């Protein structure tokens, strides 16, 4: 079908950071952060027009540095966080001619430093209107993000990611920096950030959080983090560890996601090419393991509404959509209230209930040519998702119709 064909958008820079605009529930909108060491980095606002199957983009400048992680506020459409690298002697080096660079190598090596920071930004209010008037012009003269505040604490090291409180009022974020988890309160329209509490991972060696996820359950009082091969759960009220899955993956754990409907279910992925599903109440064995990718899995995402749909992105350049019915909140298919059914439908429903629903790979998307580092579901349309590969290619796909109707009907 024509409208099932993927929509591809190319960025001019390499990119790793992708998020859906969480607070936006009407338009399908994704934010992409680029990675470039030499040029000003950008945030692309990708609008997808589902009816016409076309993409509208807007570009905002993010001059602070290359973006490693991006997060959109759940409350305010215009507010977002980024984690970015900045090279501190960058400007200086650029001014030096390439020939001279080799001469002053000692100078270069002693001063140059790459630091990871995190900050809260606000998009300029008129980015949208501007783009509509003259897309070309706006692309040539992109507007700049307005810095609200830094989420930096020099004592706590390099930020790996920033997490918004799920479904919150946009006042609380957590940043993971090296081996610290910092809970920030954003005040005065997010222009001020204060650390309200911290948790520190202690152990031998250099421990470093690689990623994390704020649980939407338990009144948003739980956090899951990944470091090396372990997954840990934290209670944010006491900032203490509540569970730990040692050796959750054979190698590095790359990403986590909470099942939006089943509070104890957690998905993780990692360098052992596996995607594992955990019940955090019994962490000895994963509930389920998927081994569909042929290289590291970088991202795992539950669909926000239908938690049997799981999206995984891997550096084998593939994106896989799996239908994990058996461990979803609707293991017997969509439950329809009895009174809504006429008799004939009831029979039909029973038939459907009897047929065993099996976990399966719905589809493998091969539109990417490079490693896919991020994949996200749209916050507006539960049947749409975007994936981003390193070469800057953003692909927007839909859940196959057959599956969509099977889930809905």
């Amino acid at each position, binding site marked *: 079908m024509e409208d099932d064909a993927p929509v591809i958008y190319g960025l001019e820079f390499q990119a790793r950071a992708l998020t859906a605009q969480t607070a936006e529930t009407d338009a399908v909108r994704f934010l992409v952060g680029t990675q470039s060491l*030499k040029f000003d980095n950008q945030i692309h606002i990708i609008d997808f027009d589902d009816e016409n199957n076309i993409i509208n983009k807007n570009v905002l400048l993010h001059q602070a540095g290359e973006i490693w992680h991006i997060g959109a506020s759940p409350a305010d459409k215009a507010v977002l966080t980024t984690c970015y690298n900045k090279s501190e002697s960058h400007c200086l080096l650029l001014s030096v001619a390439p020939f001279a660079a080799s001469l002053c190598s000692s100078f*270069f090596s002693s001063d140059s430093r790459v630091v990871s920071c995190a900050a809260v930004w606000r998009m300029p209010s008129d980015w949208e209107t501007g783009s509509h008037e003259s897309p070309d012009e706006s692309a040539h003269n992109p507007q700049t993000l307005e810095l609200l505040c830094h989420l930096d604490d020099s004592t706590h090291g390099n930020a790996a990611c920033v997490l918004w409180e799920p479904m919150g009022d946009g006042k609380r974020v957590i940043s993971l920096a090296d081996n610290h988890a910092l809970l920030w309160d954003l005040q005065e329209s997010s222009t001020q950030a204060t650390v309200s509490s911290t948790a520190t991972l202690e152990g031998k060696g250099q421990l470093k959080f690689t990623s994390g996820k704020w649980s939407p359950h338990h009144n948003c009082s739980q956090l899951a983090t990944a470091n090396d091969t372990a997954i840990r759960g934290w209670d944010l009220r006491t900032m203490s560890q509540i569970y730990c899955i040692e050796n959750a993956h054979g190698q590095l754990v790359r990403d986590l996601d909470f099942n939006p409907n089943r509070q104890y279910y957690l998905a993780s992925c990692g360098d052992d090419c596996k995607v594992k599903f955990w019940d955090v109440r019994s962490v000895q064995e994963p509930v389920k393991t998927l081994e569909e990718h042929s290289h590291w899995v970088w991202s795992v995402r539950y669909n926000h509404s239908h938690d049997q749909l799981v999206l995984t992105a891997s550096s084998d350049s593939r994106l896989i959509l799996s239908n994990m019915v058996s461990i979803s909140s609707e293991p017997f298919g969509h439950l329809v209230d009895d009174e809504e059914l006429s008799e004939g439908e009831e029979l039909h429903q029973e038939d459907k209930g009897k047929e065993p629903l099996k976990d399966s790979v719905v589809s493998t998307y091969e539109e990417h040519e490079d490693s896919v580092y991020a994949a996200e579901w749209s916050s507006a349309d539960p049947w749409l998702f975007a994936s981003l590969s390193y070469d800057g290619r953003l692909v927007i796909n839909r859940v196959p119709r057959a599956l969509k109707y099977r889930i809905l009907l």
Partner: protein
Amino acid sequence: HSWPPFIMDEGSVPVAEDPGRRRRVHGMLKLYYGLNEEGKAPEQPESLDPCDINGPHFDPELYLNKLRRECSLTELMDQETCMVRQIRSLDSDMQTLVYENYNKFISATDTIRKMKNDFKKMEDEMDCLSANMAAITEFSARISGTLQDQHAQITKLSGVHTLLRKLQFLFELPARLNKCLELQAYAQAVNTHRRARCVLQQYSHLPSFKGIQDDCHAIMDKLAQELRQKFRDGGSSAKDLSECVELLLQLDEPAEELCDKFLSHARSRLESDLQGLEAEIRPYPSTSATKDASVHGLSSTTAPGSPADGSPKNSSLPSPASNTDILEFIDRGCNEFVSSLCLVITSYQELFINHAQKGELASKNIPQMANGKLHVFVDDLAARYFMLVERRIQEEKGVGDNSLLVRALDRFHRRLQAVAKLLPGSAVPNKGTEIVIRAATERVKQYLSALQSFYMDSLTDVRQALATPRLSVAGTSVAGPASGRDAPTSLPELLSSLSASILNQIKSVLASVHLFTAKDITFSNKPYFKGEFCSQGVRESLVVSFIKFVCQSSRQFCETAGDKGGSTPPALLLLLSRLCLDYETSTISYILTLTDEQFLVQHHSPVTPVTTLCAEAREAAQKLLNHYVKVQGLIISQMLRKSVETRDWVNTIEPRNVRAVMKRVVEDTTSIDVQVGLLYEEGVRKAHSSDSSKRTFSVYSSSRQQARYAASYTPSAPMDTNLLSNIHKLFSERIDIFSSVEFNKVSVMTGIIKISLKTFLECVRLRTFGRYGLQQIQVDCHYLQMYLWRFVSDENLVHFLLDEIVGSAAHRCLDPAPMEQSVIEVICERG
């Protein structure tokens, strides 16, 4: 013709006339008078002819006329002479006869005259005799008349005498019985009493007889008591006992009670046998020692070289020796329990069933009742016996020597056949067979677990063998990759010894199990042992299960080791993968054929086909090899990742040589290559270009690089920057990093190198580089390029990945100023 001359001439009878002629004359006379020799009138139809001169109806007139009419004169003359002659001869014959008769008449007359005289005398004597007889009769009548009274008296007296004798017997009966009792002649006593019993019963209304009867009863009660006592004591022999029972039966003792008593008596004896048996099972600790020792015995036969195994266990060996082995146990069970059971059955049947069938007891349904009791009794005791036997068999866990168990089971089974013969319709032999079957299946299970533990032990040995020379390989690997071949236990040797020892073990187990179906074993011709045991027992649950176990345990190595990343040595994975592959190609079909031949399996039920097992083995082999690639790739990846992650690539000095990590990577890859080469064939690879190692990276030299990095910020053409690399990717095939490998060296090496380089790439992408950082990566990649191409199937793969690495590093570089290709080459060649 005149008569007188005949009488006159009496003395002149011609004596010399021949008898033939006389006979003829007689005949003729007879004919004449119509008499034959029997005195019957002859019926001669021809004689009706009136012209027959000899016929009775001869008419002379007719005859003469006829002659005169028919004959000539001469003929008449002849006829006349002939007739005259005949008449003359007839006349002489008649004359002779008259003479003879005359003589006889004379003598007869004389005799009659003499008789007349004699009769007269006799008549007188007869008169005298009759007179005498009359006198005697008269006397006799007179005598008997006088003796009449006395005779009647005598008859009466003799009747009284016999009655008195009978009475005397009755009166003496109590005393006699007492005496018998004293002498313990019970049989006689019972016999005596039986004779008197009816009489006593009949006359019991008379007080005197009543007294005798009561006395007798009392005595007989006493006797019965005594008999019962004797019966109860049980000390007596079986013969005594049966006599006892017989007597008691005759005494109208209730048969049911007797049966019960008999059986309970027998039970006590049999139970003591059972207790004896049970006592032999009791010593649990020593049997566990047996188990240890025997299990150990199995393993130590395969690993005789380990001295540490033998000595400490020897101390525990004497204790199992003191315990009886299973054959002795069964022997004892057979000799004591089963034979006494048989004895009991025979005597019981003799007493209560066969005997009773003859006698008057048969009417009371006693045989049926007795038979039922016997069955219950036998079943009950046999069940206990079987329980003991089964317990004993269960203790037989040592799998060293199967023949003992088989012989024991055979004996057990054989002896039960005796019971079957004695007691047709009993469930005992079937239960016995069931026990044998259970024991056999249990044994098969034990063998399976023994095989499994043997397999795991051998794997441990292999592991140890791999661990020790590994050090030496690592130590000498600097000298050259070939040193791996010189190691005392090389991989191929380990593999062959492992597979040979497993095969031997399987063969010996098959041989042991084969004993169950040997021809001289009684139970081997049971349908179970002919069919199901062979196919389901041996083939399926032993051989097939073991092969499946091998595959499964191999697969487990992949799964458990996956998370830790190295609990199983990679060499073992490689070895097992080859083992499974060998199984797939030949060993499985060999083992199954061997089994089928040995056991002549006729498959009634569906069995696992060879192809399924082969597929399973192949799958295991594939999984192991994939895992091997993964593990080895991971080890190298880990080195590369650490080296990328821990270095500050922004502030690094100008590269002067290849980093040590890269050398290590090449060394490790080489040794992996050697290792894999020992077990797997080379495999196919694409043809190398003549200057494979000299190839330069397109990234550095061509203008492409310029195009890639010089691209300015041109938002209107968003795809431009990556266009070239994207086009490049479009034309190269997508690379599956962790993909399945083929069973050859090149494919394995390709897999490992792919994993390593992809990791390198991903790590590089996560870092930021300074100018010298990039240059160092260039140098490293060139070095890898020089050495790694030879291992892979398609060198372009290595080129592509290394290009990607350098390209990514350049991308992530703050100050991308690539190094001169010639300088890189100089550095790399320097080492």
